[in-house]
């Protein structure tokens, strides 16, 4: 469980996150909102790239904001980015192994954990193949494998389905749904694809201009009038 209380982020005159209080109870949780609502900024606060002006974040009873940025991975925080971050120079195996090596897990568990993660996301490519030679779909799966390898506690997925065709989004959706149960991790999913969010997430929070405007069971939230207004003109997608 992640409890966010009164979180505020200010960049000279702009307030991308304004007094946000929300609880992510566990399982897979959606975080939606129009462009510029503050979703990625929230992820960046969790990662430690952005220092909030106020508020607190308790993750599984621990004060996440107190941890030094690179130590958060060791604590169990994983994330993907909107832009692709798989390392082209390295093989699929090394890409995933690299994450495991800095997660604080033992070296003896590494190979099995890496191969398990690669299998988990349903990646068929040879683990020894260089990521630079893979297609967009496979690279995306490598990124998800990087986010789940070992013992993640919180997995942040930032628009993992952006640009993928429907067929591949369905596969990704299945993978995301299995993460909480298989790894015991809390997933926060940011995406504009409402069918993906509905399929994966039992609960969803909605940000608009840095303010939390709704949170609760996904189906209810998506029927909420203020949410529909925030997404004005895209109701048919809901």
């Amino acid at each position, binding site marked *: 469980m992640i409890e966010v209380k009164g979180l505020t982020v200010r960049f000279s005159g702009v307030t991308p996150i304004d007094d946000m209080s929300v609880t992510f109870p566990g399982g897979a949780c959606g975080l939606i909102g129009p462009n510029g609502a503050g979703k990625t900024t929230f992820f960046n606060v969790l990662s430690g790239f952005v220092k909030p002006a106020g508020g607190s974040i308790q993750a599984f009873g621990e004060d996440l904001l107190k941890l030094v940025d690179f130590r958060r991975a060791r604590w169990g925080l994983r994330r993907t980015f909107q832009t692709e971050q798989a390392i082209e120079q390295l093989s699929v195996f090394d890409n995933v192994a690299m994450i495991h090596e*800095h997660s604080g897990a033992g070296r003896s568990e590494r190979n099995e954990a890496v191969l398990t993660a690669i299998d988990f996301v349903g990646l068929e490519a040879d683990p020894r193949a260089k990521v630079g030679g893979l297609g967009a779909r496979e690279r995306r799966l490598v990124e998800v494998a990087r986010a789940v390898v070992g013992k993640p506690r919180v997995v942040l997925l930032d628009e993992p389905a952006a640009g993928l065709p429907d067929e591949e989004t369905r596969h990704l959706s299945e993978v995301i749904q299995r993460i909480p149960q298989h790894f015991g991790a809390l997933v926060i999913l940011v995406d504009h694809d409402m069918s993906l969010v509905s399929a994966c997430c039992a609960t969803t929070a909605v940000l608009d201009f840095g303010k939390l405007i709704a949170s609760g069971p996904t189906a209810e939230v998506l029927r909420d009038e203020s949410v529909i207004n925030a997404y004005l003109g895209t109701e048919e997608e809901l």
Partner: protein
Amino acid sequence: MGAAHAQERAGRARLPRVDRPLLVRLLVIAGLLAITLFLFPATLGADWINTFTSVAIYSVVAAGLVVLYGRVGMISLGQIAILAIGTWIATRLSFATDLPFPVLLLVTGAITCVIGVLIGLPALRLSGLYLALITLMAAGAVNVVLAQIQFPNGGGGFTARTDNPSLSGLKAVPRPSAATGDNAYYRYTVIVCGLMFLLAVIHFASKPGRAWAAIRESEPAALAAGVNLTLYKLWAFALASFMTGVAGCLLAAQVGTPNTYSFPTQDSLSLIATALIGGIFTLWGAIVAGVFMQLLPFLFQAQWTVNPNFLLVVFGAGLLQVLLSAPGGLIDQFPKDMANLGRLIARKVPVTRQAALGIGSILALIIGIVLLVTVKDSPLIGIVVVLLSPILATLSQD
């Protein structure tokens, strides 16, 4: 997960330790080592062997750049100054102590490593142009300091300094007792340099190498993955400086009485240019850089009696050519171009305009060099042909 799935996983878990491309690579390396260790000393004269000793030493310095820029993405224009520091430390240590040569190599490497890390500290805050400027200025400063200290100038003891310098009394840095002759010392150098390359290879294939690749790809993503940026950036500077320090020690014993004038600041620029031309992303490229830095000037000056300063034009054109059309450097592009040329000659496949221009660009560089050394009276002809190379490379891009 089904039983078949688990079985498949178990099968995949046994990744073969040595795959075929690796085996081929090992054989190639063994072959090249055999040629450099045995064929060269048996067939070439002393001046050639001395040059190849320098090639090996400068390859290690270039390998330091492969670590810093090729792997981590940090630019350093001060590597020749680090080499000078290594040479200077080795000379002073060898004058002041009776350390056996292998120990001298290690101690020099270790001290240079510490100094290199200090010089690398700005890299934690700066990158790109600013880091390049800082390292270049550090290189200049090192040179000024070494020149001012006037060491060695013929004195004795730890300072080895006297107010009445006499070059005739200058003590020489002794070579290892097992390798005092030129051929033996050449072999010794090649083996030590080979060990330095091995050290780099081991790093690349293990945890630091993967962390460096992550930093190069994206610092925020590396940070989110739990990579301690400070630690791994300084580690890269430490490794590069250690290797360069060891190279400096080898250089000290090769020349005997090192001179600060052998480490001009501009050589740091030539080094990164030749490393980029050779291919800064692989250690093979570092060997090409060593050849460009040491063998080509020797060939121009001693063998063909051409002004070696023309090489600056060649390096400039070659750098432009590589930056425009082959970011992987010659080591990556040259085999491709030669394969294309082979296809063109054999008329197997219709060669595209791009491929033809790419080949033309490489050939212009080669023919230009040939013209420079053959038509000595009018070097302008060779220079013009060399300069065609980047122009053709530009045309091959669109």
